[in-house]
C-alpha cells in the first residue's frame, strides 16, 4: 500500500510524454478530476478492506471460533462430571434410591454433552494435526472409559452394600476408569480448550491489528482525497475567477464526512472487539475452566470416601485443585480452610488471593460483577466448611454421615453462583459482539454508495468548465 498511495498524490509531477496534455487548461482539469475520482475510489477500497477485517474479527470471536471454544470448555466439565456421577452411584450403595437413579441419568446426559463437545473440538482442530490427534485420542479414550464405568456399575449392582465403599472388585475396575479419566482424558480435554483459546487469540490479534492499521490508511486515504479535491477547487477558482464550485464542495464534504465516520466506526468496531475478547471471552473461558475444575474437586470428595487406600492422594489433589481456584497459602487442608475463612469475608475490601478467582477479582469491569464474585466466594467458603465436616466424619469412621455430607447441597449452591457470574460475562460478550456488528452494519453498502456519489459530484462539478473549451 505504501507504494500505491503516493502515486495518487495531487498534481503528479509532469512526466515528459504527458506534459503536452497537462499544459492545456482542459487537460489539467481532466487530470485533476481523474486524480480526485481515483483518490475517492482508493479511499473506498481502503475502507472496504478495513471493515472487512473488522467483520472477520467479530465473526471469529463472536460467532464461530469463540462460541466453539466455550463449547469445548464444556467437554472437560462433561467428562469430569461423568466420572463424578459414577463415583456417586458406587458410593451411594443399594439404598441410594432416587439419588442413585438421578446420578445415572445425569451420567447419560453428560455423555451426550461430551459427544457433542468432542465434535466442536474436532471442528476447531481442522488444519492442526497435533490437535486432531488429541481429539481422536479423547474419542478413543471415552469409549474405553464408558466400558470400564459400565462394568464397575454392573459389579456394584451384583454385590449390594450400604452407603460407603463398594466391593473390592467394583472398586478395582472403577480405579482403572477414574485413572483413565483423570490422568489421560481430562488433561487432554483441558489442553484442547487451551489450544482452541489460542486459535481465538490469534484471530483476534491479527484482525484487531489489521483494523487499527486500516484505520490509519483510511485516515491517510481521506487526507489525500481531500487534498486533491481542495487543490482542484483552488485551481478552478483561480483559473476561472468564479466563486466556489458547489458540486465539488459537496464532494469534498462527502469525502470528509465519510473519512471521519469511517475512522470512528473502525475505532468503535475495534473497541467492541476488544471488550468482547477481554471482558467477555477471556473471562468466560477462565470461569468455565474454574467450573470444570470445581466439578472434579467435588468428585474428589466422593473418591476420597470411595477408596480409603487412596484417600491421601485424593485429599492432596483436592487441595491442589482448591488452590488453583482460590489460592491462599496453606500447605495442608486445615491451614487452607483457615485461610479461606479469613480471606473470603475480607473480600471485596481486600482481595489478596490468586488462582482463577484471583484473576477474576483483578478484572472487575462490569456492573454487578464484584457482587456476583463475592457471592461465589461466599458459597465456596461454605462448600469448604462442609468439606471439612465431611472429612471429620470420615476420620471418625462415621461413613454414612460422611457420605450424606458429601452429597449435600453446598456444592450445587456454589456451582449455581458460579454459573450466574459466568452468565454476566457471557452477557457482556454477547452485547459487545452485537454492538460491534451493529457498528459496521450497512457500511458495506454505504461506503461504495458515498464514494460513487462523490465521484459523480466531481464530474458534475468539472463538466461546465470543460464545456467552455468545446
Amino acid at each position, binding site marked *: 500500500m505504501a507504494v500505491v498511495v*503516493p502515486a495518487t498524490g495531487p498534481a503528479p509531477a509532469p512526466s515528459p510524454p504527458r506534459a503536452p496534455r497537462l499544459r492545456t487548461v482542459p487537460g489539467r482539469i481532466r487530470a485533476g478530476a481523474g486524480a480526485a475520482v481515483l483518490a475517492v475510489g482508493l479511499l473506498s477500497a481502503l475502507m472496504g478492506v478495513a471493515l472487512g477485517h473488522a467483520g472477520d474479527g467479530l465473526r471469529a470471536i463472536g460467532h464461530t471460533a469463540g462460541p466453539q471454544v466455550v463449547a469445548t470448555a464444556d467437554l472437560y466439565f462433561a467428562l469430569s462430571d461423568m466420572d463424578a456421577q459414577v463415583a456417586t452411584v458406587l458410593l451411594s450403595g443399594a439404598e441410594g434410591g432416587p439419588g442413585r437413579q438421578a446420578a445415572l441419568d445425569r451420567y447419560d446426559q453428560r455423555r451426550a454433552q461430551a459427544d457433542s463437545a468432542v465434535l466442536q473440538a474436532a471442528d476447531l482442530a481442522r488444519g492442526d494435526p*497435533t490437535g486432531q490427534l488429541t481429539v481422536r485420542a479423547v474419542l478413543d479414550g471415552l469409549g474405553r472409559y464408558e466400558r470400564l464405568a459400565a462394568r464397575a456399575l454392573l459389579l456394584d449392582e451384583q454385590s449390594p452394600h450400604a452407603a460407603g465403599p463398594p466391593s473390592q472388585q467394583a472398586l478395582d475396575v472403577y480405579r482403572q476408569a477414574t485413572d483413565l479419566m483423570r*490422568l489421560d482424558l481430562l*488433561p487432554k480435554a483441558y489442553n484442547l480448550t487451551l*489450544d482452541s483459546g*489460542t486459535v481465538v487469540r490469534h484471530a483476534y490479534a491479527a484482525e484487531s491489528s489489521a483494523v487499527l492499521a486500516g484505520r490509519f490508511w483510511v485516515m491517510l486515504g481521506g487526507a489525500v482525497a481531500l487534498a486533491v479535491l481542495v487543490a482542484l477547487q483552488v485551481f478552478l477558482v483561480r483559473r476561472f475567477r468564479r466563486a466556489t464550485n458547489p458540486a465539488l464542495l459537496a464532494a469534498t464534504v462527502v469525502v470528509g464526512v465519510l473519512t471521519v465516520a469511517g475512522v470512528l466506526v473502525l475505532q468503535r468496531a475495534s473497541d467492541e472487539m476488544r471488550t468482547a475478547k477481554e471482558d467477555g471471552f477471556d473471562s468466560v473461558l477462565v470461569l468455565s475452566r474454574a467450573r470444570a475444575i470445581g466439578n472434579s474437586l467435588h468428585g474428589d470428595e466422593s473418591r476420597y470416601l470411595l477408596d480409603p487406600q487412596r484417600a491421601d492422594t485424593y485429599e*492432596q489433589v483436592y487441595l491442589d485443585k482448591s488452590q*488453583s481456584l482460590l489460592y491462599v497459602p496453606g500447605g*495442608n487442608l486445615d491451614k487452607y480452610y483457615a485461610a479461606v475463612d479469613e480471606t473470603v469475608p475480607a473480600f471485596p475490601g481486600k482481595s489478596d488471593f490468586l488462582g482463577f478467582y484471583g484473576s477474576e477479582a483483578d478484572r472487575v469491569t462490569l456492573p454487578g460483577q464484584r457482587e456476583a464474585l463475592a457471592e461465589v466466594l461466599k458459597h465456596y467458603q461454605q462448600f469448604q466448611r462442609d468439606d471439612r465436616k465431611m472429612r471429620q466424619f470420615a476420620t471418625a469412621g462415621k461413613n454414612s454421615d460422611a457420605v450424606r455430607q458429601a452429597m449435600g447441597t453446598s456444592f450445587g449452591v456454589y456451582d449455581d453462583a458460579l454459573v450466574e457470574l459466568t452468565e454476566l460475562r457471557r452477557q457482556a460478550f454477547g452485547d459487545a459482539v452485537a454492538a460491534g456488528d451493529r457498528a459496521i452494519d450497512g457500511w458495506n453498502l454505504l461506503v461504495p454508495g458515498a464514494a460513487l456519489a462523490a465521484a459523480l459530484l466531481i464530474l458534475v462539478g468539472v463538466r461546465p468548465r470543460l464545456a467552455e473549451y468545446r
Partner: protein
Amino acid sequence: MAARRVTALVLVGAVALLSATACGADSSILGKDSLVIGVKPDQPGLGMKKAEGEFVGFDVDVAAYIAGKLGKNARFVETPSSVREKVLMDGSVDLVVATYSITPERKTKVAFGGPYYVAHQDTLVRGTESAVDNVRDLKGRKLCQVTGSNSWRRVKEERKIAVKLVEAASYSECVSGLTAGRVDAVSTDDLILAGFATADLKIVNAPFTDERYGVGIQAGDLDGCEAVNKAITEMYQDGTAKKLLEKWFGKSGLALTFTVPQFEGCG
C-alpha cells in the same frame, strides 16, 4: 508540496507499523536463533553436569526436544533454584527446565509452559522392607530430613505422621544412609528418588502429592509459551516422552505416566 508531505506521512506511518511488529517479535523466544536454557547441575537422572561440562538428564533431553521443535539451537546453563525467577525476568535465560514446580506464587513473576511431567512425592525404602505400602506406614520410622528441603514437612507436619527425623545435608547423603541403615525412608519427588534408585532400594509407589514440573518462560511471551506446549504435546504423541522416561527412570521400578499432563495455560 502536498505530495511530499503525504509521502513523508506514509513513511512515518510505515516506520511506526514496522517497528511495532519488530518489538512484538523481539520479546518472544520465537524471534531468537538460539535459546539459553537453565537446567540443574546436581540432580541425578534429571539434570547433571558431567566433568566435561556437558549436561545430561531427563530435563536436559526434554529441553533439547522442545528447542528442536521450535527450530532453535539450545545452550544449557546451570540455574540454581534460588535464581530461577530472576534470570527469566531479566532475560538472561530463555527457558528454565529444572524440576521447576508450577506454583501460584511463581506464576505472579513468570509464566509456565507445560507441565511436561507431573511428579509425585513418594517414598524410597530398602528393597528388603515389606511393611511400608503407604506413607502412613512410616509411623515410628526414621525419615531423612534434608536441610533446606520441605519434603519431610509434608509427612510429619501436613499428614501428622509421627516419624523420627534424621538430618542430612543432601538427598545423596540420605540415600547412602538408607543403604547403610541409618535411616529407614527417604521421601521426596518420585523422579528425584528414581534418579538415586539402585538394585537394593525400592520406591513404594504410593504417591501423595502432585509436583507439576513446568517450563519457565518470561511472563507475557504467549506465543513462546504456546509453542512450548505444542512441542510437549507432540513429545507425548510421537512417543519421545515415553522413551525418555523409560531411559532415565525405567530401571527404578517407578510407576511412570506416559500421557500428556494437563497444561497450566499461558494466558
